[in-house]
């Protein structure tokens, strides 16, 4: 979504018109669901966390600084919501269930049963590797690799100093690599 349009929508929402919140919800829903899935481990809990995060975001919009990007701010709320739910509801982090509920979309030009089978196998292996690393490692990898956030944005979302992001990413990638090695997968 264009930053100008996003700002205008937030301005309207701040003035109390909830109708203008819908485009924001729909724009951030897919990425939010991905982060929710990675943190909660199952789709139902991810959807609950996402819903609560959108409501909390709306309720606190009056505190939002329009000069800052909306995405990192929302993901910070979503991440805290996931953590709260994991703590209070002790949501079962069941990445095996995640495996069953995810399906792969082959990129254009890569269709074909053999290619799809290979990509599915690689995807399954990676997901199983992710299952073996901690929540903190998984969330930073999702923010960086799937959502493509910059270090500064990740620092804002995770509420850590920007200088710590590289270190956290190194440990997360290293942990993932170790997990894959434990599954007899050699990289590269």
């Amino acid at each position, binding site marked *: 979504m264009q930053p100008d349009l996003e700002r205008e929508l937030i301005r309207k929402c701040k003035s109390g018109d909830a109708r203008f919140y819908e485009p924001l*919800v*729909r724009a951030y829903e897919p990425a939010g669901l991905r982060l929710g899935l990675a943190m909660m481990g199952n789709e139902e809990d991810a959807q609950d966390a996402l819903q609560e995060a959108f409501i909390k975001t709306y309720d606190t919009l009056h505190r939002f600084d329009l000069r800052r990007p909306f995405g990192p701010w929302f993901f910070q709320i979503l991440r805290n919501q996931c953590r709260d739910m994991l703590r209070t509801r002790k949501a079962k982090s069941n990445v095996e269930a995640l495996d069953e509920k995810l*399906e792969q979309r082959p990129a254009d030009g890569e269709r074909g049963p053999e290619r799809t089978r290979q990509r599915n196998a690689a*995807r399954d292996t*990676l997901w199983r590797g992710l299952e073996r690393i901690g929540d903190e490692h998984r969330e930073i990898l999702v923010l960086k*690799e799937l959502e493509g956030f910059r270090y500064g944005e990740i620092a804002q979302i995770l509420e850590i100093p920007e200088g710590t992001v590289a270190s956290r990413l*190194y440990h997360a990638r290293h942990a993932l690599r170790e997990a894959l090695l434990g599954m007899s997968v050699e*990289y590269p």
Partner: protein
Amino acid sequence: MRPRVSSEDLMRYLDGEMPPDERAVVDAELGASTELQRELAIFRALKTDFQALSFHPAEYRESVWDRVNERVTRPIGWILVAAGAAVWMSYGAYVFATSPTDPWEKLASGAVAIGILMLLASVIWDRYREWQHDPYRDVQR
């Protein structure tokens, strides 16, 4: 010998978060160290494979917007209903109190109205307390 590139710098290099002058230093170190090249190649392969994880929930789920919208707009609805009811009840009470009806009729009618309101309030209060302790309150039906 281990090159003079820290793990953090390697990550910043890999993720394109490094200014050109620092990149040039890392490039030079990479040219001189096969160990560093291998380490970078491993992380690059992991990164590429991870980014290829294009996925979405297999079962189509409706957007959370409807539920969010319901929760976001519901308080406004309740405020309007409560405010409207309060105004009507106040007006009704005023009309009733200032009407030329027999005081005994007023007393009896008032007792009935107040009794109904008290019963309603107690039922709502009971339901609210039940809801607070309902373990299934978050379950979508």
